[in-house]
């Protein structure tokens, strides 16, 4: 393999480039990214960077020498628009083509929106540096109430950060409780009280029906939400935290199987042996035979090791086993989850207590521990996770 092209210059792309070199690839390495930036870290975008306590430089996933060491050709600010795996070409938005032997697809995802939000000033999503900068500026100019749509990880973090900035915040969630998908009903209840304690209003069980707006400049600016049950939520700024969609559309016409991400085998190899996928865009076959896709940092950091190994071997010689570790910082609490929390038939607090806001909870199914969730207890979280979960079931 003489040339490898990494498409997507973020966490999974950066880790892939690092693994290529660490695993001995000394050929030509091209990294294509449609953002103008070198790889940066996204988790602070809803936390410290939104709060203004971290600057742009601190987001960088490496310093000058790290990028130099990779000896890569960076094609930043251009998008890959097509891939022909058998001919070995990646087409770019500036009309150029890269001849390549191997391709690592690391194009991640983009924030989803809500119908009716298109073109409205004052409605934001949070996925890029520019998104957070524009949200931050808007919050400073419009200190009226903030409405956050969606109480998943990013929505709850944005709500917490806005509240800490002194803003009045309402979170709107179609499900019955916040974070219920990630934590299950019992622990979601605890997160409900966390919002209340910090003076954030939660409206669960009713999704957004429409946005209200007023003429503004040459367009319109949002003034609030109307929920499915008729409730009106006034807002100067609206933030949508309703999930992401994988960026795999550019692969249409490549002949590769695309279905909610790039479909891969258990070793992250796509339907052509010289194409692998990593990070939020990779939908791979898990040990239980299902196709799964993860949307979190540790996964994007860990998959490249396996994917690069298989790409360089030209075959699936290693299978990926996820650690399924996710963390979140909100309302001054550190939350950590690992393993499987879905479908648990029992959730037990094994250390500390929910009231003290420092505890470790085990999720069990049929008597077997499948997942661990902790609040403000990193030491015991790690121990419990090591003892009960390694290697994690997929």
């Amino acid at each position, binding site marked *: 393999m003489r040339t490898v092209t990494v498409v997507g210059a973020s966490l999974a792309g950066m880790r892939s480039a690092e693994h290529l070199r660490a695993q001995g690839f000394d050929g030509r390495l091209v990294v294509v990214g449609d953002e103008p930036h070198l790889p940066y870290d996204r988790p602070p975008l809803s936390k410290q960077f939104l709060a203004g306590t971290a600057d742009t430089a601190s987001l960088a996933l490496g*310093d000058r020498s790290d990028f130099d060491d990779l000896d890569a050709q960076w094609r930043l600010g251009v998008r890959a628009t097509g891939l022909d795996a058998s001919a070995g070409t990646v087409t770019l938005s500036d009309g150029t083509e890269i001849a390549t032997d191997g391709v690592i697809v690391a194009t991640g995802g983009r924030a989803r929106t809500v119908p009716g939000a298109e073109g409205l000033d004052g409605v934001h999503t949070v996925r890029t540096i520019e998104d957070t900068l524009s949200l931050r500026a808007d919050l400073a100019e419009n200190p009226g109430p903030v409405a956050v749509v969606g109480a998943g990880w990013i929505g709850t973090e944005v709500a917490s950060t806005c509240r800490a900035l002194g803003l009045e915040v309402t979170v709107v969630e179609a499900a019955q409780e916040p974070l219920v998908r990630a934590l299950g009903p019992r622990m979601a209840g605890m997160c409900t009280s966390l919002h209340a304690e910090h003076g954030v209003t939660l409206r669960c069980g009713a999704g957004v029906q429409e946005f209200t707006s007023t003429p503004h400049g040459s367009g319109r600016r949002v003034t609030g939400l109307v929920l499915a049950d008729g409730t009106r939520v006034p807002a100067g700024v609206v933030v949508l935290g309703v999930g992401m969609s994988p960026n795999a559309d550019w692969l249409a016409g490549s002949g590769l199987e695309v279905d909610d991400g790039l479909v891969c085998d258990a070793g992250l190899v796509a339907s052509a042996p010289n194409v692998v996928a990593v990070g939020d865009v990779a939908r791979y076959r898990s040990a239980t035979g299902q196709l799964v896709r993860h949307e979190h940092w540790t996964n994007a950091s860990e998959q490249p090791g396996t994917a690069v190994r298989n790409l360089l071997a030209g075959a699936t010689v290693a299978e990926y086993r996820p650690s399924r*570790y996710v*963390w979140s910082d909100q309302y001054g609490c550190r939350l950590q989850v690992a393993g499987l929390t879905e479908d648990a038939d029992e959730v037990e607090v094994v250390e500390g207590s929910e009231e003290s806001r420092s505890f470790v909870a085990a999720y069990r199914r049929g008597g077997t521990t499948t997942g661990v969730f902790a609040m403000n207890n*990193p030491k015991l979280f*790690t121990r419990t996770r090591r003892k009960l979960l390694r290697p994690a079931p997929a």
Partner: protein
Amino acid sequence: MLLAACTVEDLPMGESVRIDADVPIAVFNADGRLYAIDDTCSHQDASLSEGWLEDCFVECPLHEALFDLRTGMPSCLPAKKPVRTHPVVVDGGHIYVQLVEQEAVA
């Protein structure tokens, strides 16, 4: 400067303690050998005394960067910068840390 950590009995093998100094320090008992390093991870805000100890390495409890307790060097991402290491002194059943004042070497 000499900082008192704890008694020898309070730090059995495989355990760690945190000293709440101006710059917090983590002390580890790695299979009978004592090591002290800066407690705050060089990547972001996590306490290394709460990390996972394996041989003479500690894994950060937040993003799993691995630090060599002998040198303070990270041996895996996402940490890139070392943490400072400090000599440990045992005297009369008590563990002390000799605080190293200079900046971490890059």
